[in-house]
């Protein structure tokens, strides 16, 4: 079975578990997003037809919430916490440094698609501000140097593997 079919099957199972309940839309979107990493129109159309919801409603809901992405993210995902504590402690400078070094804009991916940089809302680790998350791992009390170094390492590692 292709991974595509498997994902679809899992999505179908989740919808069945929720009894194709329209009110479980957000839960189902969560699952679909987890499976696919982002939403495209086909996926949303599929969900809308299975739940018998208007397509515009599904798109409206999915695009309302910040967590959902509508573009395929890069191989590595960096998210910078823009919570108050992180801002007060200078996360902005770190973000600008990442943007400069890797030719990337917040909310977007690098030209080669290897890394994406997202701004997230407070992740609640305020006492360790500023926080940068790289591929799911939180770096607390982050400094510009440490973060750049870590990203270089993550990217470098990728190159070695590719060989």
């Amino acid at each position, binding site marked *: 079975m292709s991974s595509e079919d498997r994902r679809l099957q899992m999505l179908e199972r989740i919808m069945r578990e929720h009894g194709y309940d329209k009110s479980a839309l957000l839960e189902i979107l*969560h699952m679909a997003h987890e499976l696919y990493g982002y939403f495209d129109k086909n996926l949303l159309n599929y969900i809308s037809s299975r739940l018998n919801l208007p397509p515009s409603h599904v798109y409206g809901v999915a695009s*309302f919430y*910040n967590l959902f992405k509508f573009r395929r993210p890069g191989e590595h995902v960096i998210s910078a916490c823009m919570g108050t*504590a992180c*801002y007060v402690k200078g996360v902005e400078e770190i973000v600008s440094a990442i943007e400069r070094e890797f030719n990337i804009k917040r909310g977007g991916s690098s030209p080669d698609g290897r890394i994406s940089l997202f701004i997230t*809302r407070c992740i609640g680790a*305020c006492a*360790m501000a500023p926080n940068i998350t790289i591929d799911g791992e939180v*770096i607390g009390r982050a400094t510009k140097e440490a973060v750049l170094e870590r990203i270089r390492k993550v990217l470098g590692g990728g190159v070695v593997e590719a060989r």
Partner: protein
Amino acid sequence: MKPDDILRVAEREAEKQRAYKSRINVCCSSGCLPFGALQVLKAFESAIKEYGLEGECKVSRTGCIGTCSVGPVALIEPGGFLYQNITPENAKEIVKRHIISGEPVKELLYANEAFFKKQYRLVLRNAGRIDPLRIEEYIMVGGYSALIKCLTKMTPKEVIDEVIASGLRGRGGAGFPTGQKWNFVAREKATPKYVIANLDEGDPGVFANRTLAEADPHAIIEGMTIAAYAVGAEKGYIYVRAEYPLAVQTLREALKQAKSMNLVGENILETQFNFDIELRMGAGAFVAGEETGILASIEGRRATPRPRPPYPATSGLWGKPTLIQNVETLANVPLIILNGGNWFAKIGTPKCTGTKCFSLTGKVNNPGLIEVPMGITLREIVFEIGGGVPAGRKFKAVLVGGPSGGCLPESALDLPIDYESLTKAGAIMGSGGIVVIDDESCMVDTAWFFTDFCVDESCGKCVPCRVGLLKMRNILERIMRGEGRLEDLDLLQELGEYVRDVSLCGLGQTAPNPILTTLRYFRDEYIAHIVDKKCPAGKCFRLEAEI
């Protein structure tokens, strides 16, 4: 299971725990995890094993102890020795010297007693002391006995009366009397009724609810079940931010355990009372924490608030009576039931009883999670518990109440913490964020940051919030570019009052607070930007001039 069975669980667990001479509680909360808390936990475990102490010393993973800035931390009982900045290497050292030789490792101890001195831990009673993933430990420390008391000895009305007597008010921000809210839902005839526990703590710089859920999930579940019993609800939802994966995981596990012990579900403790709880995850929308926004979100819609009345108590989820309560409020409930409303009412101030959890962050020496009695002053929080601003810097302001809170100056520090005083000063209790700002920060820039947050989080439904806030932010940007005019200050004031008074929901109504309070307390900084084209803190004018 019957009530007696639960009591036996407590006894058995207590017996088990008594076998241990000491206990190492390792904080594995979101605060300590990034600094290697799990490795520290493992190091403790293997050291205990290495020295053959498995029967004497229990290593336990617990929730947050509060001193998040010096993690990973661990609490060793008996004696309440708190260790800071633990590494796997010195974990072994601690076992060797403290557990075996009985001599605390002084150089690793958290020496800051002031941090705990003025705190009063009710809601966080179990945080850092029990393993949140073991319901037996919660039961052992008296957990679920309040629920048993309600189900076996009290009528729903008596439960509500007790909550009314306690004077407890909603901890989500607005401070509405909890018992009164329960009464509203209880007297509604329509069924089914719902209870929603609000854990959509979206305020940047606030992590009190998350910490509570990670440290003591059963306190929330028990409080919620008692509330359901009191108002006659049969279904509940815990709405959690998806940004809090550990809290989601912990609550999910705790729910499973509570269900398996028949503390949630059908015929709870073999009574006629049914109450099922489901977890629902948010997806990144601050406004979903608003009462009616949360309803829309649970119903699977865009989380746009709707005007009230009708209030959720009459017409909530799917048009049915619904009780919406912040998780911190709910965690207070078991204590009120066990100790009585009058006992609770003695804590805090007469109009504002009990305690409040705050996330203390920013430019302060001891950031972390604290719980203090209502009525304590901001000065005590910032300078005593928080230890003041780091050396060499000067205190400038304290932001109370999250992004829609207010920036209060030194002169407001002697204000007692209660809903009314804070509102009068231009701030709000919010969900309990205190961010300390020092002289390195520009107040215009600070106001911009919070306004920008609210602009991004506005749902877009009503004009004042969607357009008014945006315009306010744009005016700030103009000022920060050095193109401001003095008239802008009046316009900001007028727009601020308009957005506050005309917006549909709490987000818009409080969003102008940062601008209105900085205009009120730090007007000179605005004037410096406009007249002298200077940013006193040297932050602004980084945006390219436009014309």
